[in-house]
């Protein structure tokens, strides 16, 4: 992963490019600052099965709400940029940019539009799944441990644990 780009996603009201360097990156800061929102942004693009996983009731809850004094945004957009020099992701490109967009639709309360893009071209969530499966990246993978889930592997039932390994097999 080379970069995470957030635009009006939850508490990230502006446009922010967060370069992800190689090796070990630590993120710190005060409570409520927005650290876990970055993790939610990554899961949002990887297409979770449910929005509850990223602490939102409706997809429009993900759009920056303006805080106490500002104006709510109309849309949010998150891109994950992967280095693909080694073509692990089956696409003829040195870089793969996966983008997900959610916009409030005018006139309809809580209505929204949700689009997916691969390197700027419209795509479907299924396209993301196919591209990512080869690179062993998924929203449900054991490589993402959300806040409070660290003891999950120990607390789950033996049956659930067997299922985790079936997915890997």
């Amino acid at each position: 992963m080379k970069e995470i780009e957030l635009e009006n996603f939850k508490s990230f009201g502006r446009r922010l490019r967060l370069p992800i360097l190689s090796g070990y990156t630590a993120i710190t800061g005060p409570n409520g600052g927005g650290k876990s929102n970055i993790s939610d942004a990554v899961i949002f693009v990887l297409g979770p099965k449910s929005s509850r996983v990223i602490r939102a009731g409706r997809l429009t809850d993900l759009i920056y709400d303006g805080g106490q004094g500002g104006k709510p945004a109309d849309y949010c957009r998150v891109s994950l940029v992967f280095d693909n020099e080694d073509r692990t992701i089956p696409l003829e490109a040195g870089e793969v940019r996966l983008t997900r967009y959610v916009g409030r639709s005018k006139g309809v309360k809580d209505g929204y539009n949700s689009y997916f893009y691969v390197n700027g071209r419209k795509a479907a969530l299924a396209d993301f799944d196919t591209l990512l499966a080869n690179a062993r990246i998924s929203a449900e993978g054991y490589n993402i441990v959300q806040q409070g889930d660290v003891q999950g592997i120990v607390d789950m039932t033996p049956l659930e644990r067997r299922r985790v390994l079936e997915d890997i097999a």
Partner: protein
Amino acid sequence: KKQGLLEVIHALQPNFATVYAEISEGGEASLELENGEDPFAGGLLIRARPPEKRFHRLEALSGGEKSLVSMAFIFALQRHDPSPFYLLDEVDQNLDAVNAERVARMVRMNAASAQFIQISLRKVSLKEADHIVGVTMGHNGLSKVIMQVNLDEVLEEEIPQAETA
């Protein structure tokens, strides 16, 4: 399908045992199928024993001990079926200073072959990282990012276990 599952378990078991022994400095851990004949008739058990203790039910372990077992499982999976990046959000919340440092050291080791992003409030973890990024809240509930936090400004030290002993 059954073949695939058995292969994963057989490959994972030695990694899990080695990683847990390392991260707990002398503990013992293993994976066992409830039903060896037909894996789909039962689940997968984890057995773990911290150093100098007996085996107990997994739920009798302390919060910190459970976190170490979970992290050993994640690192063991990384060795068997590596993912290109890892995102760990406050996995050190229940760890004392010594164990938080051990986990961070292991992240550092694994970061040679994959990207690791660890969200943490603890200095013993932060100090092991190659890069530190600060995220704070500005006005109007707007998050701000500071790309390079100076570790010296992060004062937290941890409780050295030796002193409390």
